[in-house]
């Protein structure tokens, strides 16, 4: 199935977006957690502060379904 990972801030460059400035299309075999998907694409989850899908906060154990967009938020801590 296909999922879409989206990131801003310093995570954007780490994600290596391919379908637009913020989004990377990822093909996965069967069900996987976000943690497993990040490992597959060599993105260190330590740089991911928040994960959300369809307006609801999730964590690394979330298993996305086909076509979902998962937003990866970097630490946002300036002021």
């Amino acid at each position, binding site marked *: 199935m296909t999922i879409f990972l989206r990131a*801003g801030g310093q995570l954007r460059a780490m994600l290596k977006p391919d379908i637009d400035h913020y989004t990377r299309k990822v093909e996965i075999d069967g069900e996987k957690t976000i943690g497993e998907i990040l490992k597959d694409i060599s993105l260190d989850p330590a740089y991911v502060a*928040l994960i959300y899908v369809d307006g*609801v906060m999730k964590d690394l154990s979330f298993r996305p379904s086909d076509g979902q967009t998962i937003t990866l938020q*970097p630490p946002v801590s*300036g*002021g």
Partner: protein
Amino acid sequence: MSLSTSEIERYQRQLTVDGWNQERLKSARALVVGVGGLGGVSATYLAAAGVGYLRICDSDRVELSNLNRQILFTTEDIGKPKAALVAQRLSAQNPEIKIEPLSDKLTETNASELASGCDLIIDGLDNHADRLKLNKASFDLNIPFLYGAINEWLGQLSFFHPPETACLACLLPEELQDPKPTPVFGPLPGAIGSLQATLALRYLMTGEHPVSNTLLVFRADTTVFETVRFERRPGCGVCGKTVPSGH
């Protein structure tokens, strides 16, 4: 608490805003910690609106690299303490209110002391570790915490007042990969600071807090707002513990 003739004239354009309660604002007490990009803006609107008592705390001095976004300061202010400068400028803007500037460095020990006696804690900080200190003080004292933060093109805010809502430690881990210095699009702290002022004034007048258990995310590069729902975490190291008396 009644209004003087000069206050009625000063606040004339807001007194007729639907739901406005100037007397409640006049008797309200707010703490703004950090008066740089975020706090400089939120404190300015709180002062202009007539929040009766503002305690502003910042241990920093103005630096040249602040000036792309910290619009209360000028080039001549470089090297001067931010808290005193902001107090001076906001007092000139609205002499009807009381402003207490503090240059103390925020610590785990003094966070509760700084917040004591206030109705609301407003986040103008520039790092996660200090926000967690304020979050803990907020829980210990049962004072709501209005969180705001920025990074590059991203801004986010929420309202914490456990046990009614989640707290910052429910939302974010203790350790964050927190690169310094944070890149910042100059108008972004203005936008987030204005939203914090909006939520603060609404809360102080009405007790309403529409962004509880919700993270409001603003993506300034695409001018998109998103709301993200989250829940209180039962195992939270702050609000998952025994609720202090007074709650």
